[in-house]
């Protein structure tokens, strides 16, 4: 028999989360909760497994295709299991003027990954503007902002990731 998607504890968290999400919308508009519901699933599982997408769809009373359509449109949803730490490096104009491309190259070398690649520990991605242009260059690690990065600062941050 296939492993169940959730542990009992995760199931409880998912059910409570879905109930809360649905309560924010008109009763005939459950499907509006798609983005928060996908985020809930990703918070629990670390990514969006296919059986999870089906479960979200069922709870919101839409087809699984609809859940997949939304999940594949937005870049923050992981349709494959990412590394433990997802590093998103902004290389847009303001960050590049402060050395972001060089910072990305440094990370690629240090992690042994090209942008867009992943291993168990890290997913390294080039991303679009993170609204930190005044504190460039910047990156996010699992959605936490790190700004005004110098080589020393970045090394210290990376050293803490176990």
């Amino acid at each position: 028999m296939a492993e169940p998607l959730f542990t009992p504890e995760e199931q409880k968290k998912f059910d409570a989360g879905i109930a809360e999400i649905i309560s924010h919308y008109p009763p005939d508009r459950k499907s509006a909760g798609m983005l928060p519901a996908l985020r809930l699933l990703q918070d629990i599982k670390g990514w969006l497994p296919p059986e999870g997408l089906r479960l979200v769809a069922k709870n919101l009373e839409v087809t699984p295709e609809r859940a997949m359509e939304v999940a594949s449109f937005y870049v923050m949803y992981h349709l494959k299991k990412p590394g433990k730490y997802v590093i998103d490096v902004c290389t847009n104009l303001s960050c590049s003027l402060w050395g972001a491309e060089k910072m990305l190259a440094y990370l690629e070398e240090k992690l042994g990954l090209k942008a867009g690649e992943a291993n168990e520990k890290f997913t390294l991605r080039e991303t679009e503007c993170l609204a930190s242009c005044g504190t460039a260059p910047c990156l996010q690690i699992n959605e936490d902002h790190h700004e005004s990065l110098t080589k020393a600062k970045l090394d210290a941050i990376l050293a803490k990731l176990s």
Partner: protein
Amino acid sequence: MASTAKAIEPIISAAWGKPQSWTLDSYRQRGGYEALKRALEMQPAAIIDEVKKSNLRGRGGAGFPTGLKWSFVPKDSPKPKYLAVNGDESEPGTFKDRYILEDDPHMMLEGIAIASYALGVHTCYVYLRGEFKFPAQRCQAAIDEAYKAGIFGKKLMGKDYELNVYLVRGAGAYICGEETALLESLEGKKGWPRLKPPFPAVVGLFGCPTVVNNVETLASVPAVFQKGSDAYAKLGTDKSGGTRLVCLSGTVNRPGVYEVSMFTTLSELIFDDKYGRGMPKGRKVKAVIPGGSSAPVLGADELDVAMEFEALKVKQTMAGSGGVIVMDDATCMVRSLWRVARFYAEESCGQCTPCREGTPWQTRLLRKIEEGRGEPGDVDMLSNVASSIAPYPPIGLGNTICALGDAAALPTHSFLMRFRDEFEAHIREKRCPFGDKPWGSFGDWS
């Protein structure tokens, strides 16, 4: 340059950086929610009139008069009405709403309460871009405080009027800052913009009348009622009231978010000691994008212009989202435009052919030119591709449903208009004239 720019009294940013500025206690000590009390004693129509008289204009990009937008909501509609707050701040060079959400979220929440009451809205959704984890935490904590204090909920500040405010996080899509794409996203769909008309004020969220307002716009509303609409209007020009936030980034000594008057010029922002404190030693300004990456670029001799909607329109560019990006004389214009073009190619939603196909085409051509593989005719080709997305000069919207097409084409048109020589030089010399330092050597990573 010493400080010669006229000082202003900050409104939106007054409490930033002060201890606990994001809490309800702090906001109340500064007179917070008094404007809401005042507004709740007025008739809804009178509130809208006050906002009209204040000359407050939308701070998200288009600069549409806020009171006028509110007045488009049909008064006699039997459907529920909605307020959607646009906090999808993603336009490169723009990072102001984030500070409101992090440092003074109650100012926006008070604006939401006033707007909702004026519009007959009982449900408001605050849509924040997905990457805003920390701003979302601060904002949600403030919403929770407001419920607990009896400001939101069954009785709006004790009045017999229900208002619920929900925070929704996006999931990484610039297009969702376009108001109809934002509504699609709020409905749980991919962010594909809708054809307009009908406008959201008539057919918006769930097919109901909806006002979509930017975070800074709503955060500006309480001041209209604290100061009075006349006093607020007088802070600005005849057509644009109040103060505004601008975001300074790129090769300047002191980047950051600054609250300025509608009369503050670009050159004051860059050089004045109160703001950017000028260029790094030995560097000169080459180009400035005045209102987020989609705003047409200006040359170094065009900076004596107020950062205000009408003044920048005269220069054939726009105040947009207030994102000012400075590029110095060591910056390659081809490289810069390539990076901007790549952004729009990445963020095009794929709905309209000219944008879906044109944005990657621009990117490929720019990469080719920057890498020294450009051929004679490529610059004209680039210009043609941009024109097929949105012709220049613009006549309303370009060939696409939403303004992302224009946003992608305008940078190309304007860079070619002002820096065409540099593009031609890349092709002539078969290399980037800036060698392996197209971004200059600025910052710690050089």
